[in-house]
């Protein structure tokens, strides 16, 4: 019995040590473990010119213009996080989920004029899943414009009879 108790205490002590070591390590690396930085992070602490990093945020509503450059699709848009905005240029094919109001993560570097030249654009999907008829009903009733940001809180549309509730 005492040996079992001792093993239990040794395990708890090891667990406590390992747990606090992990917490300290993770909090120390908190800023470097991010997959992307937001536009307001760049406003306060801009990475050096030509240094590659990932920039993430929402594609600002009404900012997207598409064109052609040397027979390649070319896009200009602004990425915002509500606080700050960064102009982005990208040459290449945008992912299917790319649209105004969508979260995106882009890999590239800052140019001298402050624009961000992206070499890769990834679309970030949010945690909302809804059928087309629910989305259409929300849009038609004027409660949500996908270009302006995330959908309204789920409790307002996700009822047991979704189509009817969302339309009303």
């Amino acid at each position, binding site marked *: 019995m005492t040996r079992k108790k001792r093993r239990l205490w040794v395990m708890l002590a090891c667990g406590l040590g390992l747990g606090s070591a992990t917490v300290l390590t993770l909090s120390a690396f908190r800023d470097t473990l991010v997959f992307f930085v937001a536009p307001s992070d760049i406003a306060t602490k801009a990475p050096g010119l030509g240094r590659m990093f990932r920039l993430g945020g929402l594609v600002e509503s009404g900012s997207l213009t598409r064109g052609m450059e040397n027979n390649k699709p070319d896009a200009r848009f602004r990425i915002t996080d509500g606080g700050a905005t960064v102009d982005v240029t990208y040459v290449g094919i945008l992912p299917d*989920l790319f649209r105004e109001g969508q979260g995106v993560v882009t890999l590239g570097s800052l140019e001298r004029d402050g624009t961000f030249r992206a070499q890769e654009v*990834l679309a970030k999907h949010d*945690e*909302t899943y*809804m059928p087309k008829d629910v989305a259409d009903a929300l849009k038609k009733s004027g409660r949500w414009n996908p270009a302006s940001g995330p959908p309204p809180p789920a409790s307002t549309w996700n009822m047991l009879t979704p189509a009817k509730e969302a339309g009303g």
Partner: protein
Amino acid sequence: MVASTAVAPPQSGGRSLHRFANPGRFLRIAARAQPWLTGVALVASVVGLGWGLLFAPADWQQGDAVRIMFVHVPSAWLASFGYMALAVCSVISLIWRHPLADLAAVEIGPVGAGFTGLCLVTGSLWGKPMWGAWWVWDARLTSVLVLFFLYLGHIALVRAFDDPVRGYRAGAILALVGVVNLPIIKFSVDWWNTLHQPATITLMGAPTMAVSMLWPLLICAVGFQFAFFALVTARLRAAVMERRIRGLLMARAAGA
């Protein structure tokens, strides 16, 4: 029955956990439970996947690609659940030296690794059309890959010693050290900026998924959960019986 006495801890009252320690009793209970576990697993998986893949509505922006969710999300849940079960077995094995927990840890490993692999593969297949990348090194994906390697390490370590008991001890310590990864997986999407989206289904607040997609997802999750139990139970029964046969053969060899 030399083997069963060799692996059975002393009987005590019938009220403590040791009630379930007796491999003979385990074999009897498991044999009765097996058809139910397998049956529920098959029925719920077929109903859930059929509903999800054929009848559930497509997502308004992801289209039909959203149906990968019905395999990806349950296997992701089971990847973490399996590791939690592995850790519980490891605690019981290290503190109470429970022979059934040793065997259970050995048998949970490959099943958990299988579900983790399924989660990584389906996630990759989903990531390419939606995000535009097969793989990114964000915190969620990386921590799940670490979980997969922890499973593989455990599988290799418990089988790496000539003396199986040393393998069980080493494997249990590895499994418990790896537990720190579980909260990292769960909260990675909240603590850091990741490409992977945060949780859709939370304890507090309404799920941000239409109910018409949520039902088949939950049925799939029940089916996969029971498939996990059915697989582990079948493997564990085989392991207990294998150990008995080995004990009998050794007893016969010693007697001859």
